[in-house]
């Protein structure tokens, strides 16, 4: 359709028919002030701040509700308009308490800004202001009624974008008031979107309110560390007596894959970092008790023990368990350490999805994985299994809003009536555990429908659904961990017949996909190369074992049987998660790197206090394969990154760390500080150690970017734009594994079952999440996940 031409303040503007005047103005850099208008929410026309003069129209018009028309001549600024806006501000201030000096929003308040621009400081009103006390609606949502300017953004975002509808408007006129659904409190998803979108300080956050002012914090853009969706988040940090404390999580930078969105975990559950149980010094078991020790003592002991075992019993007597929460660089480094330094393929992690089979099924295909952004734009989506609202909140947001704003067709197949069925064009309920039959039926095996037929769906329903899906184009096929092994291949086979289709395999935890991509498998190297076929890596790394090592279960069995002499656990809690007896690890020398004294750490011989993903630099890969940067925001004195600890252990074993981390090697594109976020002294701190070891302090073996360099060279799909990545943008990695499948035992996959209000170990140590769980009387997840 041809563009519509209008003139705004003398500038020619062309925009597609149907564009709102306020948006058309933006395209030429003219900002029309607004309170109630918010892109992608329904129009409200409540605040009258956006008044503009349109020639030939009798009165001032609201730019936020006016659709542009051919030949319109618009003035957005004139004494008349200024006066109109000033009067609006005066009305808004009529009842507004002037408590900016103590208000959370002070310094980033839209009303403050408007008052500054239009000046309505003196008021003609002489009546008393209508004061109401502040209310607490939930552990995380507070409402300060007099500050509310009735823009209704909160009501709309909760209704439309969240599909929760927990907020409403009561009374009318000046006595209108925003009200929560349970009269005096909220029963909702506690996402805090309403707080985020409130232009003033009427809705405030339980975790941040009255703590600090916006200009007193450093703001660090990084990636959320809870679920596998990878929201971009901006952490507000402030110096405190133990380092750098995170005081706020929000998404003031809307450029991320999550746009406006953060869920309760991303917004509030950063407080695990400052939990009182956080470990802040190394512990060594002496006389049966874990006793504080120095880092040197700890590394010396680990180096000595690991070397001993290696010499006497060989690398195969050592096991390594990696993490779903450590960075790609750490995961890569850990498996390299296991294979090259310890000389063992005994490395595994808690698997939450069948990524290796997925990679093999996609072998040779280009652009076959969907990014998180694709989910928001695709014309059609098929979702099999999982409950994204609970387990992948961002994914649920993308799907919901794609349906709402772009009329995407959503097809849901699930054994439960999940919340997303409300957006679904078709919802088909299956008997629980029948997901594999769905994959087989879709792939053409008609007899598989037998297992799917119930009073909810008969054979016709299934046949119809399948033809309907086959008729789609650019379909995104999303599946939970219910689909594994050969079912993935069936699904990919089905999807490959649909033009432009893409796939998305759902794993749990912030970097489960990264753990898989980086080769935390006993039989798979980074990029899903079979360990028996690692020529590319051997050339780079030198000698390493090729026979597959032990899986996590086999390692634990081996430790119990006394075959495994040493176990190195990084950021994982198998003892707690699998509910093992405390005696299991007593026969081996156990080293654990973790933030807390988990069930596993409590059994260790050496415990090293680790930094979490908010306290380090590196990269994460979300479940879609979107690669994003981590920047260091918080810091707890006395902890170290897993990266540094791995390098230090290699060093303590007498290994030349230059062979582990290719820092300073010719051609390495190293980090010159871009990824360090709020921290500056780090390079200097490392320099002390480096100089003592006669290493060049300019490039550090603790620099994850040096490993990222190697990852980008060796892991297929990861050679994305480094510049974009460092600039804080998401880069989609294309997953294609080698075609030959190294069959994985599907029984090793165990989903985390983290719900909206839980998040494994992190959630357990988040006071905010726990307070919400308590209030909602929800049961925390049964499993003590890691």
């Amino acid at each position: 359709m041809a563009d519509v031409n209008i003139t705004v303040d003398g500038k020619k503007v062309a925009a597609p028919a149907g564009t709102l005047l306020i948006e058309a103005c933006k395209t030429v850099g003219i900002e029309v002030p607004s309170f109630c208008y918010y892109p992608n929410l329904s129009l409200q026309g409540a605040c009258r701040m956006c008044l503009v003069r349109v020639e030939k129209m009798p009165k001032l018009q609201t730019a936020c509700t006016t659709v542009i028309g051919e030949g319109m001549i618009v003035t957005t600024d004139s004494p008349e308009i200024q006066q109109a806006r000033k009067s609006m501000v005066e009305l808004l201030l009529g009842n507004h308490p002037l408590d900016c000096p103590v208000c959370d929003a002070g310094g980033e308040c839209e009303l403050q800004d408007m008052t500054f621009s239009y000046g309505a400081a003196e008021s003609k009103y002489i009546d008393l202001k209508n004061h109401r006390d502040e209310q607490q609606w939930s552990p995380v949502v507070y409402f300060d009624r007099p500050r509310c300017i009735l823009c209704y953004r909160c009501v709309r975002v909760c209704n439309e974008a969240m599909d929760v509808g927990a907020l409403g408007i009561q009374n009318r006129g000046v006595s209108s008031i925003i009200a929560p659904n349970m009269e005096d409190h909220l029963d909702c998803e506690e996402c805090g979107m309403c707080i985020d979108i409130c232009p003033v300080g009427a809705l405030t956050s339980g975790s941040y309110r009255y703590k600090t002012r916006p200009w007193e914090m450093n703001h660090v853009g990084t990636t959320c560390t809870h679920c596998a969706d990878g929201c971009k988040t901006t952490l507000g940090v402030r110096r405190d007596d133990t380092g750098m404390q995170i005081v706020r999580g929000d998404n003031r930078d809307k450029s991320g894959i999550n746009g406006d969105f953060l869920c309760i975990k991303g917004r509030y559950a950063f407080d695990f970092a400052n939990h009182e149980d956080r470990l802040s010094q190394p512990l060594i078991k002496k006389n049966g008790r874990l006793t504080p020790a120095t880092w040197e003592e700890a590394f010396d002991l680990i180096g000595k023990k690991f070397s001993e075992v290696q010499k006497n019993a060989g690398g195969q007597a050592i096991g390594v368990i990696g993490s779903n929460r450590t960075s790609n660089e750490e995961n890569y480094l850990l498996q390299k350490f296991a294979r090259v330094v310890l000389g063992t393929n005994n490395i595994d992690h808690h698997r939450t999805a069948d990524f290796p089979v997925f990679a093999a099924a996609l072998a040779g295909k280009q652009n076959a994985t969907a990014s998180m952004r694709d989910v928001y734009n695709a014309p059609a989506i098929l979702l099999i299994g999982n409950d994204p609202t609970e387990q992948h909140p961002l994914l649920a947001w993308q799907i919901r809003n794609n349906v709402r704003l772009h009329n995407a067709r959503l097809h849901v197949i699930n054994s439960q009536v999940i919340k997303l069925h409300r957006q679904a064009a078709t919802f088909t309920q299956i008997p629980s555990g029948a997901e594999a039959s769905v994959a087989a039926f879709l792939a053409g095996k008609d007899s598989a429908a037998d297992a799917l037929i119930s009073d909810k769906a008969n054979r016709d329903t299934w046949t119809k659904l399948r033809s309907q899906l086959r008729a789609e184009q650019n379909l995104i096929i999303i599946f939970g961990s219910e689909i594994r092994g050969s079912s993935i291949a069936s699904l990919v086979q089905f999807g490959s017949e649909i033009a432009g289709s893409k796939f998305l395999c759902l794993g749990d935890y912030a970097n489960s996909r990264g753990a898989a991509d980086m080769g935390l498998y006993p039989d798979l190297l980074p990029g899903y190369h079979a360990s028996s076929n690692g020529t590319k890596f051997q050339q780079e790394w030198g000698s390493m074992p090729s026979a597959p090592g032990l899986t996590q279960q086999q390692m634990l069995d081996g430790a119990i049987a006394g075959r495994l002499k040493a176990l190195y656990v990084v950021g994982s809690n198998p003892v707690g998660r699998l509910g093992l007896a405390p005696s299991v690890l007593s026969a081996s020398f156990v080293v654990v790197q973790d933030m807390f004294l988990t069930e596993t750490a409590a059994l260790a011989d050496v415990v090293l206090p680790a930094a979490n993903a908010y306290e380090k630099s590196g990269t994460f890969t979300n479940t879609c394969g979107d690669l994003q940067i981590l920047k260091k925001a918080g810091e707890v004195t006395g902890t170290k990154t897993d990266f540094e600890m791995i390098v230090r252990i290699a060093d303590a074993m007498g290994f030349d760390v230059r062979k582990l981390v290719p820092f300073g090697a010719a051609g390495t594109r190293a980090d010159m500080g871009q990824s360090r976020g709020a921290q500056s002294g780090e390079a200097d701190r490392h320099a002390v150690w480096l100089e003592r070891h006669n290493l060049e302090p300019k490039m550090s073996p603790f620099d994850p970017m040096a490993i990222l360099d190697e990852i980008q060279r060796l892991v297929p799909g990861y050679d994305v734009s480094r510049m974009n990545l460092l600039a804080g943008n998401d880069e989609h990695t294309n997953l294609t594994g080698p075609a030959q499948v190294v069959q994985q035992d599907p029984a090793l996959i165990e989903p985390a079952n983290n719900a909206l209000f839980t998040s494994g170990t992190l959630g357990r140590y988040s006071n905010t999440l726990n307070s919400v769980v308590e209030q909602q009387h929800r049961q925390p997840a049964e499993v003590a996940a890691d």
Partner: protein
Amino acid sequence: MKFSDKFEARFTEMLTHYPTQRSVLVPTLLYAQDEVGYLSDEVILELAERLALSELDVRNVISYYSMLTTKPRGKFNVQVCTNIACMLRGGEELLEHCERKLGVGNKGTTKDGMFTLEEVECIGACSWAPAVQVNYDFHENLTPEKMDEVLEQYRNKAAR
């Protein structure tokens, strides 16, 4: 919950009057209130379910209209107008008189549950100000004395 047949008949008919189902809410609320006396939690839940709305939505609408109430009222709702015409002709005195006589303030209900007193804006009877509306009946050109008779009349009615 159970409504009268008359209510159900009206409700069913009302559904055919509007292009969107939720529009039925406003008149229905009034009918329900007439029948039950006020809009109880039970009524709210029932109507929300029937019209596929949230209870919050229903409450929002109720709070918008001053004629709708979620609190029980007396048998007779005495609405005294104090808007301009009535005020000039003694509406405010009439209200004060009622307050003394009934021993309750604005929106108060007498102990015996007979009367609720309410100060209202113009009820469209300015020509015969001051005016009072009791439930759906009008009483005009009132004086404190005449008001006493009106109240007495309702007491007798209740006694019958």
